[in-house]
């Protein structure tokens, strides 16, 4: 029989340090697959976040420079402006990209920087132990919202992706989910599109990926994927928020 599915070449052999059932792991594989399929490993530069994915450089077999928490898009801007020939992507969590990194993200998008951001939305601060994130759901209990997130006190789940879709500098803005195999495939397509948009010099690309954090959601892996689909996707509705290639057409 012939092998139809295996480990992508751009993914180093190191086993993941992520928790069982963590979406980061799946997403890492997808990114590596896209890098393989586009054959761009040799001229890709990645920027991992401060977050559970801080060690992403142990997995992606491409050049990578670690970023201070939230500054991924500023570093990527520096990298891309100095090396326009390289494909540059940031990999960031919800806290990284939409809390401390809000300004860097918005302004990079507004400048239409030719970079691609992969934004892993798991509605909590995973690495630091499950504190409230800008994307935490109303009523969701976290270690810093022990009474559940209250709109009046902690504000509403922040949808930075929606905001960025309004910026002329953004060329491709999409929200996907990892809830099912079909959605995993859709996510991979979105990542590829996000990379191609950059290669075509069309503008900033943002792929938000709804991803489970079983550990901090205190759910089993299987339950957490169900929660992803049944609850989180209701608040953060997947879909293409902007695609200038379509608009042009």
């Amino acid at each position, binding site marked *: *029989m*012939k*092998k*139809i*599915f*295996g*480990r992508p070449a751009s*993914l180093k052999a190191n*086993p*993941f340090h*992520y*928790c*069982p*059932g*963590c*979406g*980061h*792991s*799946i997403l890492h*594989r997808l990114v590596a697959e896209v890098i393989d399929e586009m054959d761009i490993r040799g001229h890709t530069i990645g920027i991992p976040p401060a977050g559970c994915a801080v060690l992403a450089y142990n997995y992606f077999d491409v050049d990578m420079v670690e970023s201070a928490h939230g500054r991924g898009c500023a570093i990527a801007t520096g990298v891309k402006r100095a090396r326009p020939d390289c494909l540059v992507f940031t990999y960031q969590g919800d806290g990284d990209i939409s809390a401390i990194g809000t300004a860097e993200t918005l302004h990079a998008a507004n400048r239409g920087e030719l970079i691609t951001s992969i934004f892993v939305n798991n509605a909590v601060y995973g690495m630091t132990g499950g504190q409230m994130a800008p994307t935490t759901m109303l009523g969701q209990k976290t270690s810093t919202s022990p009474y559940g997130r209250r709109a009046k006190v902690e504000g509403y789940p922040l949808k930075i992706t929606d905001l960025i879709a309004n910026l002329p500098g953004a060329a491709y803005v999409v929200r996907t989910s990892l809830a*099912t*195999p079909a959605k*995993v*495939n859709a996510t991979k397509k979105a990542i590829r599109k996000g990379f191609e948009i950059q290669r075509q010099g069309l503008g900033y690309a943002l792929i938000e990926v709804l991803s489970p954090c*079983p550990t901090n959601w205190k759910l*089993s*892996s*299987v339950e957490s*994927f169900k929660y992803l689909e049944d609850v989180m996707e209701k608040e953060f509705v997947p879909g293409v928020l902007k695609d200038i290639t379509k608009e042009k057409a």
Partner: protein
Amino acid sequence: MAVNGMITIDKSLCKACELCISVCPEGAIQLSDEINPKGYHPAEFIKERCKGCSLCALMCPEVAIEVYRER
């Protein structure tokens, strides 16, 4: 109906998240009794059933699954 697929599971990588099991349309995967070095009961492949649809591999966070298919 003839087997037309099979998978291999790298048990040392498996963290027993059971995602593969939850998505396998053929119920061709289950957790084994053994304990792997990580301390998990790794998933194991039950022959016969597999259609080689790759759904399990698509969901496997640890990239522990390889899928093979006839033709």
